[in-house]
């Protein structure tokens, strides 16, 4: 029973982190028309910035400052990089973001080294929040949950209940018309790119110490975030949210299942062949996102909520 409750909680937390990462990516996709391969690199930058800032000040300052800095880096990349590449078409843009991802990787390795850094959960939150069926649940995870839900609410409010949010939404679908109505579309795009990167950065700040902060974190997270965006439907925030939750829960539950194929064969009354039987369900967890990606592209290329095909 506690496995189910804990897996549910962990799955929701992982799903919310995934959403925080993919929400920016999906907005940026609507705007540019291409996936930004460097998006997960901004997540990594968030974690490293937070590690360094927390080192000289404390975690709480890092929590605010690191995403802001990542957002500024993102805005600068849009203004001085992408904007000029944009004129040369989608392939150029795609390659640009590819190059950028590797560039950020290398820069991170040069500054912080090749090994994981010791970016820790703040002491204030390093205690068990509650005990359930004899097992303890860490307070930091509850904190991640609260920050994510807060971010979700803020994002929803800004996009749907403010004039600025309406202008952003209109600019994503009708950039020319929004310009003719007198809104500074280049500046809107820069802000959206910056804000999307800041959200990825925030995911890095609160996720980097919960998971690991090392130079491989972008490469590990990148493909999963793409899966979320594609499965959810390119450009759809609601879709990204559903896909992130689905993926988060499925992966967490798969890891929590102790059974192996041998057991399943046993239940089915088949004899367990030695090698196949040794495979555990948990070991299949990393496969789930990509299996989902492949399946969705086959049966529903628009994704869960998307309005256009790839």
């Amino acid at each position: 029973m506690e496995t189910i409750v804990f897996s549910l909680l962990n799955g929701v937390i992982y799903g919310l982190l995934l959403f925080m990462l993919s929400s920016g990516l999906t907005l940026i996709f609507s705007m540019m028309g291409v996936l930004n391969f460097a998006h997960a690199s901004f997540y990594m930058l968030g974690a490293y910035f937070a590690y360094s800032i927390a080192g000289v000040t404390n975690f709480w300052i890092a929590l605010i400052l690191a995403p802001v800095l990542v957002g500024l880096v993102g805005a600068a990349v849009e203004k001085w990089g992408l904007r000029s590449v944009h004129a040369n078409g989608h392939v150029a843009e795609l390659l640009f973001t590819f190059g950028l991802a590797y560039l950020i990787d290398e820069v991170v390795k040069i500054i912080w080294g090749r090994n994981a850094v010791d970016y820790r959960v703040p002491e204030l939150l390093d205690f068990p929040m509650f005990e359930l069926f004899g097992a303890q649940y860490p307070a930091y995870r509850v904190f991640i949950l609260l920050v994510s839900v807060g971010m979700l609410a803020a994002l929803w409010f800004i996009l749907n209940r403010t004039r600025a949010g309406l202008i952003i939404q209109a600019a994503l679908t009708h950039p020319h018309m929004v310009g003719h109505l007198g809104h500074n579309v280049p500046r809107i795009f820069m802000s959206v790119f910056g804000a999307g990167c800041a959200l990825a950065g925030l995911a890095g700040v609160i996720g980097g110490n919960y998971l690991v902060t090392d130079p491989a974190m972008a490469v590990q997270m990148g493909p999963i975030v793409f899966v979320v965006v594609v499965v959810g439907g390119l450009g759809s925030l609601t879709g990204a949210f559903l896909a992130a939750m689905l993926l988060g829960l499925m992966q967490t539950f798969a890891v929590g299942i102790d059974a192996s194929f041998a057991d399943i064969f046993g239940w089915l009354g088949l004899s367990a062949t030695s090698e196949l039987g040794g495979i555990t369900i948990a070991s299949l967890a990393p496969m789930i996102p990509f299996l989902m990606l492949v399946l969705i592209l086959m049966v529903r290329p628009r994704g869960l909520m998307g309005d256009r095909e790839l």
Partner: protein
Amino acid sequence: MTEPMLTVKDLHAFYGKSHVLRGVHMEIMPGEVIALLGRNGVGRSTTAKAIMGEVPPKGEITFKGQRIDGLESYRIAHLGLGYVPESRDIFPMMTVRENLILGIKDMKKPGRWTIEEMLEMFPNLKERADNLAGVLSGGEKQMLTMCRTLMGNPDLIIIDEPTEGLAPKIVQQVGDMIADIARAGVAILLVEQKLSIALRIAARVYVMGHGEIVYEGTPEDFKTRADIRKEWLEV
């Protein structure tokens, strides 16, 4: 004599290698209503897009004494030039009211009309103020785009084929609305196929053929020019 509000001199425009505008000349006085006529594909919409900065213009475009060719669209809009494109481009997933809100350039500077006043003038829109714009009829969408652009308080508004695809009764209503806009003192460059509407409202007529202006005159003069109609308009 007052200065023209908009002056277009030797305007050229290209789509890739195809040379679509070949030296367009045009002048619009403050508050004047101009009709731009021509067959399909002669470059009327491209003229509008080039003036608005959506297609890169080559030539000299002056609005209220300031060069606007090469400016970004939003700057052109802020100088007081409004544009209602052929594609209408309402924001379908937003309500009628939200569409109107997005027409306001600066919340601190009140325009000629408030949203409530605009809705009072158009009962059809008022009834649907909180419905999604995507479900409006073609005529209502056209009215909404015009109202949305008017919320930005333009001094000149370029309206591209407002009556295309509308039922005759609605065409009449849209025509009345354009006449109302003119009465409010807003200059209009009306791109229109339907002579009935164009000649009723316009003070001057331009006819375009193959990317150039081939005729300019008053509606009275134009009515006597069967040769021009035959060569450049009738199909």
